[in-house]
């Protein structure tokens, strides 16, 4: 009997050792939301982009310092008139279903982006008039007019090349089982529970992929996400609340990573959309200037976010080369009062709508008390996010606290928001000079010309203030100390190249 027990124990120990040696590297990642449909053509959520990053390689990608680098592409060349872009593709790249990624697949994907009903990529590629296969590893994209942000657009969802064979099965089937050319292939998805990906052995850049499996778990509550990380049920969590930073740092088992975002948090003012635009703040730029001057952005960030976010009054993130190097304007109550007096509105009422999350409500309250000192009577109205968005686009609000997650190219942060008739221009702000500068920004080919154009946009919008910018968030990740090699990117999207666990 004793012999039997001993041999069982030995066998168990051996099996244990074997099991340990061959242990697969699995990473469990806590997300803030559950993504929408996993089809790069249709996808509409930020969190969807987070999951795609492991599954779908793009023609181009960004580096942490926002340089554009080729991925599925190896290089590109603009035609002299800037109306056609020739892209050279990487040889020997396979999709996760074993088919070849080539020029025909790129053409198929971009054509699908332009024609699939409900495609969210269509407007991003609006200027594209045709895609031509030059040879198996070369495609040529024709444009109606020069469009400088195109490479940046192709470094996001529009540049994720999908397997034509898999997509032929129909959009619904594809969205439930996406096939791309990224490092991890789709295994399963249980809505609101998990998305499981496993390493794609034939990935073109497999030398940089050390993990065997990634499981994404959507856990909306940041406190619960953190609890899961601390208990070891998760290895890595995104969007940690800045107020939890001290707690994370005090834990010997955890480390953090952070980087300033590409987007911004601001207040969109209704300047010309329906009756609420006739309010003092909507109808007079001096009132808006006074409002902006009454806010101490540094103090706001200090109070609500433990000083972790970045106070600023610009629409590009601090990492962007288009961000203007200048100090954040100081609070100036005397000047604000003078402006209000000049506008004949010493005590204007401002109806400020705030999404009903606890921290944004706090942002609203801090602004309310700061603006009161300049003479403003700020009335806060908390509104659930989708309702607020709807009311804002219908022109039912005076001012709305609204964030934008940000894009690599400056065009993605400003064009739709302040161009006349822009899709996200809820306040219907319109200024021909701004429009002209935005067009130059889109079409000019060299950096200096684009920078000059966007500086011009900033100069005008700083004065007219259709959006009062408040601060930039910092993306904050927390992870177990066993996770190594994680590099934060300013777009907030996790990339697992060279990340290990163990």
């Amino acid at each position, binding site marked *: 009997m004793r012999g039997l027990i001993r041999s069982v124990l030995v066998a168990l120990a051996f099996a244990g050792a074997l099991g340990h040696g061959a242990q697969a590297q699995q990473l469990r990642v806590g997300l803030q939301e*559950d993504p*929408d*449909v996993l*089809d790069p053509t*249709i*996808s*509409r*959520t*930020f969190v969807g982009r987070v999951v795609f990053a492991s599954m779908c390689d793009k023609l181009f990608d960004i580096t942490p310092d926002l340089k554009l680098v080729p991925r599925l592409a190896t290089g590109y060349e603009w035609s002299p008139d800037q109306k056609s872009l020739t892209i050279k593709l990487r040889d020997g790249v396979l999709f996760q279903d074993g088919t070849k990624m080539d020029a025909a697949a790129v053409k198929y994907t971009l054509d699908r982006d332009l024609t699939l*009903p*409900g*495609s*969210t990529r*269509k*407007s*991003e590629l609006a200027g594209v008039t045709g895609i031509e296969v030059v040879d198996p590893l070369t495609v040529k994209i024709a444009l109606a007019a020069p469009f400088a942000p195109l490479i940046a657009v192709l470094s996001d969802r529009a540049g994720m090349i999908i397997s034509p064979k898999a997509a032929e099965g129909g*959009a*619904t089937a594809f*969205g*439930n089982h996406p096939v791309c050319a990224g490092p991890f292939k789709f295994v399963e998805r*249980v*809505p*609101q*529970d*998990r998305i499981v990906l496993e390493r794609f052995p034939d990935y073109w850049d497999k030398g940089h992929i050390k993990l065997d499996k990634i499981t994404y*778990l*959507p*856990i*909306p*509550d940041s*406190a*619960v996400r953190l*609890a*899961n990380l*601390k*208990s*070891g*049920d998760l290895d890595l969590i995104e969007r940690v609340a800045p107020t939890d930073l001290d707690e994370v740092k005090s834990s010997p088992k955890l480390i953090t990573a952070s980087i300033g975002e590409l987007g911004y948090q601001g207040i969109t003012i209704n300047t010309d959309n329906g009756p609420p635009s006739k309010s003092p703040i909507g109808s007079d730029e001096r009132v808006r200037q006074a409002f902006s001057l009454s806010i101490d952005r540094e103090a706001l960030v200090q109070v609500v976010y433990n000083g972790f976010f970045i106070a600023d009054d610009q629409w590009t993130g601090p990492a962007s080369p288009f961000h203007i190097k200048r100090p954040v304007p100081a609070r100036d109550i005397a000047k604000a009062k003078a402006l209000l007096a000049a506008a004949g509105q010493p005590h204007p009422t401002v109806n400020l709508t705030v999404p009903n999350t606890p921290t944004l409500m706090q942002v609203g309250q801090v602004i309310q008390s700061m603006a009161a000192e300049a003479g403003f009577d700020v009335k806060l109205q908390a509104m*659930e*996010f*989708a*309702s*607020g*968005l*709807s*009311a804002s*686009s*219908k022109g039912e609000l005076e001012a709305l606290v609204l964030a*934008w*997650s940000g894009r690599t190219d400056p065009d993605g942060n400003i064009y*739709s928001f302040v161009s006349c008739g822009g*899709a*996200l221009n809820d306040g219907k702000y319109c200024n021909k000079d701004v429009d002209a500068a935005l067009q130059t920004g889109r079409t000019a080919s060299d950096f200096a010309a684009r920078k000059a154009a966007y500086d011009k946009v900033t100069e005008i919008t700083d004065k007219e203030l259709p959006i009062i910018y408040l601060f930039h968030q910092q993306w904050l990740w927390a992870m177990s100390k066993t996770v190594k090699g994680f590099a934060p990117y300013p777009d907030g999207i996790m990339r697992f190249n060279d990340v290990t666990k163990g």
Partner: protein
Amino acid sequence: MRRFILHRLGILIPTLIFVSMMIFALQQLLPGDPALALAGEERDPQVIQYLRARYHLDQPLPVRYAYWIGGVLRGDLGESIRIQRPVAELVLEKLPVTGELTVLAMIIALAIGIPAGIVAAVKRGTAWDVAANAVALWGLSTPNFWLGILMILLFSVHLGWLPASGYVSPFESLWGNLATLIMPAFVLGNAIAAVIMRHTRSAMLQVMRSDYVRTARAKGLSERTVILKHGLRNALGPVITLGALEFGQLLSGAVLTEQVFTIPGFGKLVVDAVFNRDYAVVQGVVLCTASFYILLNLAADLLYAAINPRLRA
């Protein structure tokens, strides 16, 4: 008995039609344009228009109701706009999860509530009674989400005994399944245990004062037999009705608990769908929950009739 059942089934159909209309109408009161909410951050006008047309959001209300109810009658609950999957499939996927959670919670509630109620009634006025009432009051007044987070902190973060959240299918691992469900089931069951305890107590108090209990005692039956056979059996009627109602409420009331413990059940499905204005999902889930509620009520009535022959007439 058969007439009783048929009568009750007859009421079922108009009730369900009325419920379906209510669900549809109430949902329209939600502020916020669903096409806009679902169009994502870019709010592309072409996409918004496409979503409106595809999901009939541009049609008048009665037409939309007709589309929906027509589909429901053919067994088609529609499609989630957000993740492009049939609602019926989602419901079938989530129902067993919430079902299991609810059953576990109910077992915990009954296991705590009924014995505590009996003890409180039998030992009325003693320390036992006070203790049971105090526990009940605590259960009733503790918010689910708060208790949930505290339990996560204690059992997952500090002690490391249980996973903090998520769900494991029993087919994958029975132990894993119980480990993920025990905390949420306790949180849910805890509040209901309090209600059941209080009802059991008052029903028992009433029954124990009745003549037949005095007769039973006079016959010299043991106190145990008197309490369990004569007392409890008669006191259980209202407790069963209450249990069925609470059970139905659990199906929909697991919302907060599922959110805290990230359990991919009905509650989480509906909350996410409401925030994203994924109308078809909200309608499908609420219709199913309402149907269950109605069926559970029916089951309670039938059970009631089974233990109380006077109701069968």
